[in-house]
């Protein structure tokens, strides 16, 4: 039991540290990075419930992310409904969408389920482009003016800085990780994993496959839509490719695959790798660092080439990363760490 107490203390310490960060860090950039990290953890963890635990590898999670983001933004833009109210509409809509998608896609297994999930997300993306009266089409929705958040007339925050977003993000991360923890430590977690390991065996043991797959999907979709709504109000802009595109779905999955599917901390680890990496690539940080340490001169052909092209290379790098992970760490970073710990234990004995 000592180990669980130690774990709890460690988690509380990290949480305390995260709560204190905005008091000591003024840099909006640093807070921005943390918010991106939170968003990534939420997205990965939401996918994890369906993909990691229940083994239904959806490559269409952009559907839920986009529906959440669009609903909140549309309500705010056209009806001036505050996002913390609009988000509930997003959740309600996503539950309906998820149940419809589930009733179609869960008839299929394995690769066929994957293809169907992609198709459904693409249908939503194309709808968002073409239903211009509703979604403003390819132009997207721009809504940066957030109403101040009031409790009983007193203004709690007016969203002028990144700090309120930081705390909302942190709260949502705690929520998603908490939900996953509860799932893992309940009947649901056992049933999800049974379905993942062997659907027919699970069925013979009294588990209603369609019921539990749909529960996993709805949980996952609701949390993903929360992440989407948060993205929408934080960035202040949504358009079809950024919230409904296939690369959003792939990004959501990658967090989990790299971190470790079906583990509580996998998506957190995955985000800790992916977010800084994509940021470093995008902002030309790597080229600048190489110049600074004198490895390449900024005027040389290589320097110019890197500066011009490296920022587009993050997709390529993701690809390489996935190949490396699948080859050398098939259970993700979490699985790799567990394996190392086990080996050390055995060596100690």
């Amino acid at each position, binding site marked *: 039991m000592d180990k669980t107490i130690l774990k709890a203390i460690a988690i509380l310490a990290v949480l305390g540290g995260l709560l204190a960060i905005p008091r000591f860090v003024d840099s909006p950039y640093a807070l921005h990075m943390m918010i991106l990290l939170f968003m990534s953890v939420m997205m990965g963890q939401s996918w994890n419930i369906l993909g990691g635990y229940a083994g239904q590898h959806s490559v269409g999670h952009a559907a839920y992310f986009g529906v959440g983001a669009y609903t909140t933004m549309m309500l705010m833009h056209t009806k001036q409904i505050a996002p913390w109210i609009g988000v509930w509409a997003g959740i309600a809509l996503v539950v309906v969408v998820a149940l419809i998608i589930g009733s179609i896609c869960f008839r299929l297994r394995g690769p066929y389920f994957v293809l169907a999930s992609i198709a459904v997300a693409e249908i939503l993306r194309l709808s968002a482009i073409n239903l211009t009266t509703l979604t403003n089409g390819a132009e997207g929705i721009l809504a940066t003016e957030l109403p101040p958040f009031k409790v009983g007339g007193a203004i709690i925050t007016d969203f002028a800085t990144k700090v309120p977003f930081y705390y909302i993000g942190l709260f949502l991360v705690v929520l998603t990780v908490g939900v996953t923890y509860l799932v893992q430590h*309940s009947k649901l977690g056992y049933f999800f994993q049974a379905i993942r390991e062997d659907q027919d065996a699970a*069925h013979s043991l009294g588990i209603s496959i369609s019921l539990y797959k749909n529960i996993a999907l709805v949980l996952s979709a609701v949390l993903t839509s929360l992440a989407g709504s948060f993205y929408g109000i934080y960035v202040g802009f949504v358009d079809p490719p950024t919230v409904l595109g296939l690369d959003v779905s792939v990004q959501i999955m990658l967090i989990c695959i790299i971190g470790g599917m079906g583990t509580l901390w996998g998506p957190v680890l995955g985000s800790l790798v992916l977010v800084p990496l994509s940021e470093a690539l995008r902002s030309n940080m790597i080229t600048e660092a190489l110049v600074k340490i004198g490895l390449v001169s900024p005027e040389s052909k290589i320097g110019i080439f890197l500066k011009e092209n490296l920022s587009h290379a993050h997709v390529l790098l993701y690809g390489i990363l996935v190949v490396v992970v699948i080859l050398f760490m098939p259970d993700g970073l979490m699985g790799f760490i567990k394996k190392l710990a086990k080996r050390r234990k055995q060596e100690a004995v």
Partner: protein
Amino acid sequence: MAILEIKNVSKFFGGLAANSNVSFSVEEGTIMGLIGPNGAGKTTLFNCITGYYPPSKGEVVFDGRRMNGLDPDKVCMLGMVRTWQKVRPLAKLSVVDNVMVGALARTSSLKVARELAMEQIKVVRMEHRADFIAGGLPIGERKKLEVARALATQPKLLLLDEVMGGLNPAESEEIIQLILDIKQRGLTQMVIEHDMKAIMRISDRIVVLTSGEKLTEGSPQEVVSNPEVISAYLGEAHA
């Protein structure tokens, strides 16, 4: 009293009759053996009984209730559970977690489920393996795990599909003892088996299937002395 009644069950795959007009009943507390050459339709019959296939014709009545068209999970909840000829462990889960999945059919508490699971693990004598990952077990123990997991759902009727297939004589003997133990607890069983010696020892009655049809039914002695059975197994020259 008959706990399971199979009434004129037929199963067609296109023009092929995997089962045709099979009828028999299983008495409560007994062991029914189901034998027949490869392709006789034994596993298909199991699938029809447990809801994996709807029977094309006929009726399956369990505990006074018509089972046709019920899904496998409902069948399990009503008290009929099967194991698989080709074992299906939940490979990444530990032995105790595997059995807990079965136990969770009857309880929502993980604590209660764990206790129920440990009880069944003791029944199959695998306490020392409780924390092993199921995917790493040898075949004999995987077969026993299947039985423990099925027992954990607290069935009234246990259907065993070749639990001795691929086992060595010592392991088979262990399974025979296990099946007799389970009978002692008053649980009805239906057993598909290829090993004639084993099936003779454990069964109260035996049904013989060939090419999807019921050839005969009777006590083990009656069945082995039946010339039709001998010819089905060994060819007509021996009958």
